[in-house]
């Protein structure tokens, strides 16, 4: 009975919290996006015994592996850079089925990358590099439906983020925010693929917020939805982060707040209607976006239990909102080199904006790669801490005005990566108290960390680095307890799950992607991280569990 509880109890808790149990059912673990496993069979006391139990090579090696594996009832579902989908026996690594997307040789504006699938109601859903959304039969991998969301060669966009299943719909974002494109979020009927609603991230003529865009700038103002949102079933609110305004660094033709770019929006999931928004970065001129993890947690806030929303933004700030109404609560820097603003006021207003200037070169910190990239942070209710993989890198930024065609890149400037004023370009993993913004510990890395963070009830934090090492830290102290060389650079998102009472830790391995490809821009003299596309799975030896 006790043995059963050891693995059974976290699953029971998962229903009322953001912790996962046996399964890893959704991109962020659950729709609350904690990236926290309630499993504790692998813990600080025995993690040094962790061994690889299986590995799987996807065969799609050119552009690395960024997926978050989804695990449901002992089956793991992953998507690869070329939008292939693979179902594996999660305990043995045996292939159950694979779907090799036959997409065309389209120019891929944002590179070939796929951050994962969604699984729900017998369907496995994947977005493709040429901007289709596809549903497969969960049992067989057979294609059930396929929608061209917008012609990729016109919009210059693609779907790189994992879709999100909410009730009878699947929600999918789109890239295109660094191009002359108008972003949106689309909801499809999960059974038929029919479009149910579309939320434009830039309000059209006559809509509230349209007056924050002069002239025709709203038609090509960016505002992509390239990462995955979160969902609070109790409030029945869908949260999604919206990307930067375009042209990225030149706002001369878009003087105004540029709603709803660089904002967090809460939508009615049945209709796509806006319930509230909070624009973190009005008139974004740094390419900082607001598309990143939306961690939904109920925590005490100044003596009162509140429903909160957290985002570690590319700007190097951790933002805290009240997720019932979008009210700004606080924002704290989590990087040391930050000169894009002086501070965030108690109202949420950015103070002392240091903007790129036309024809002038300025050192901007963080760089357009961010104080962190899209790779997601984790929240552990066990320690009460959040864990973020971050970097200290700056860029010499020069704004310029460009005339571009629809769908073409529209950066509005050029950039050269530079080390920060206080030392070499570098990365780190930090534990942050989400109620004060204070850093509790920091684990230093030579290069940036572009893999998501996983925390577990075993008191552990997992992440991987570009050199290929997948490692475990003590969640309370940051002490490194274990590591394993996976061969390829770590660029994906690790997860934990259980099959037949045995806890597994899985991580993708294989370097790739646009920002990954820019490794040499920050460290021109270092060897480039190794590519590949593999899943490595670890567990305690059978005898010791």
């Amino acid at each position, binding site marked *: 009975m006790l043995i059963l509880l050891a693995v059974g109890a976290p699953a029971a808790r998962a229903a009322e919290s953001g912790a996962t149990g046996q399964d890893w059912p959704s991109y962020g673990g659950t729709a609350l996006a904690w990236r926290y496993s309630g499993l504790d069979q692998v813990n600080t006391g025995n993690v040094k015994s962790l061994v690889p139990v299986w590995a799987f090579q996807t065969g799609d090696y050119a552009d690395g592996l960024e997926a978050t594996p989804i695990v449901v009832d002992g089956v793991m579902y992953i998507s690869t850079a070329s939008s292939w989908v693979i179902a594996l026996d999660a305990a043995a690594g045996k292939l159950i089925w694979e779907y090799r997307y036959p997409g065309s040789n389209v120019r891929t504006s944002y590179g070939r990358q796929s951050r994962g699938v969604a699984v729900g109601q017998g369907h496995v859903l994947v977005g493709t590099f040429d901007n289709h959304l596809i549903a497969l039969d969960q049992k067989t991998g057979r294609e059930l439906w396929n929608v061209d969301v917008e012609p990729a060669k016109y919009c210059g966009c693609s779907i790189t983020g994992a879709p999100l299943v909410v009730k009878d719909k699947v929600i999918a974002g789109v890239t295109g925010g660094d191009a002359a494109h108008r972003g949106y979020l689309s909801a499809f009927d999960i059974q038929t693929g*029919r479009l149910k609603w579309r939320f434009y991230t830039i309000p059209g003529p006559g809509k509230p917020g349209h007056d924050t865009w002069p002239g025709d700038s709203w038609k090509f103002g960016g505002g992509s939805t390239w990462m995955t949102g979160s969902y609070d079933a109790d409030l029945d609110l869908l949260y999604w982060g919206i990307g930067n305004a375009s042209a990225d660094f030149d706002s001369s033709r878009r003087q105004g707040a540029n709603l709803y770019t660089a904002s967090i929006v809460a939508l009615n999931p049945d209709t796509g209607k806006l319930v509230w928004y909070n624009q973190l970065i009005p008139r974004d001129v740094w390419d900082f976006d607001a598309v990143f993890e939306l961690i939904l947690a109920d925590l005490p806030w100044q003596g009162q239990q509140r429903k909160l929303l957290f985002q570690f933004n590319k700007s190097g700030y951790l933002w805290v909102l009240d997720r019932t109404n979008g009210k700004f609560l606080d924002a704290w820097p989590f990087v040391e080199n930050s000169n894009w603003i002086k501070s965030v006021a108690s109202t949420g207003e950015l103070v002392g904006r240091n903007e790129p200037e036309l024809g002038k070169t300025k050192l901007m910190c963080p760089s357009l790669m961010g104080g962190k990239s899209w790779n997601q942070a984790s929240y552990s209710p066990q320690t009460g801490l959040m864990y973020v993989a971050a970097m200290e890198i700056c860029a010499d930024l020069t704004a310029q005005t460009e005339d*571009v065609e629809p769908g073409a890149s529209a950066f509005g400037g050029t950039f050269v990566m530079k080390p920060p004023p206080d030392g070499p370009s570098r990365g780190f993993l930090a534990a942050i108290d989400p109620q004060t913004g204070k850093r509790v510990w920091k684990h230093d890395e030579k290069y940036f960390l572009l893999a998501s963070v996983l925390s577990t009830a075993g008191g552990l934090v997992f992440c991987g680095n570009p050199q290929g090492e997948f490692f475990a830290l003590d969640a309370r102290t940051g002490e490194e307890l274990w590591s394993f060389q996976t061969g390829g650079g770590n660029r994906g998102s690790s997860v934990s799950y259980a099959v037949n009472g045995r806890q597994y830790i899985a991580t993708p391995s294989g370097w790739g992607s646009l920002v990954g490809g*820019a490794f040499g821009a920050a460290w021109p003299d270092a060897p480039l991280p190794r590519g590949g596309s593999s899943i490595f799975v670890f567990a305690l030896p059978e005898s010791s569990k």
Partner: protein
Amino acid sequence: MIFLTLLFAAQIKTASGAAINGARIFAEQCSVPYCHGAGGSASRAPAVAGRGFTREQLRATISKGRPQFGMPAFASKLNRSALDAVVSYILNLPPPASASADTSKAPEVVKLSKEEAAGRDLFFDSERLPSCGTCHAVNSVGGSVAAPILNPSFTAAVLNSVKIPGGVTVKVAGKAPFPALRQPSPAGTVRLVDFSSPLPVVRTFREGEVELSPGMDWKHRDVVGRYSAAELQSMLLWLRAVLSSSRAAP
């Protein structure tokens, strides 16, 4: 022969001498986030490795940029020797192994008038679904569920009278029937384009899951009818501009 040998030797020397420097400049300036990728293998911008560019082409493109594609001019950022070094580096890059590297020719740009550009934006308008571009491609840009548009001499009257042969009404047990077109299907399946959605859905059923009857209530003129005469005219203007060979840019 002596001349050739000397020239060859000089190039080797330049190439090897400049390669280190050029690699560094390329890494710092060209493989920055979103642009040409590690080793010129392409990321957001096209692959430059193994494309057969000449030294002169590269020098000119890097100096002047390609502003219509978002590539800045580097004339003020790279001095002559830096430019030569990075050009040499690119010329010596092996072709990329990446399956995703698009080594196709960059798309030709037809300079459009304001009215023609407005027609193009209407054709692909993502807010008025289905737009023309949802289903039809022009010069291989656009949807693939209907025939590409090849003929620049359409008129509004022709568009209104288009009849779609082969339409079917599809019955699935317990669901409302929907209009569709059949597509070639893998064995044992029925593949259909479901037109009941603002974005058509290519759906694949097992044989026996669906019942088809000839004829459908979806009509091309219902879509065409949502555009005003002026809007149709504007789209036709654009089609003529990009489909008539005399306007295709060199």
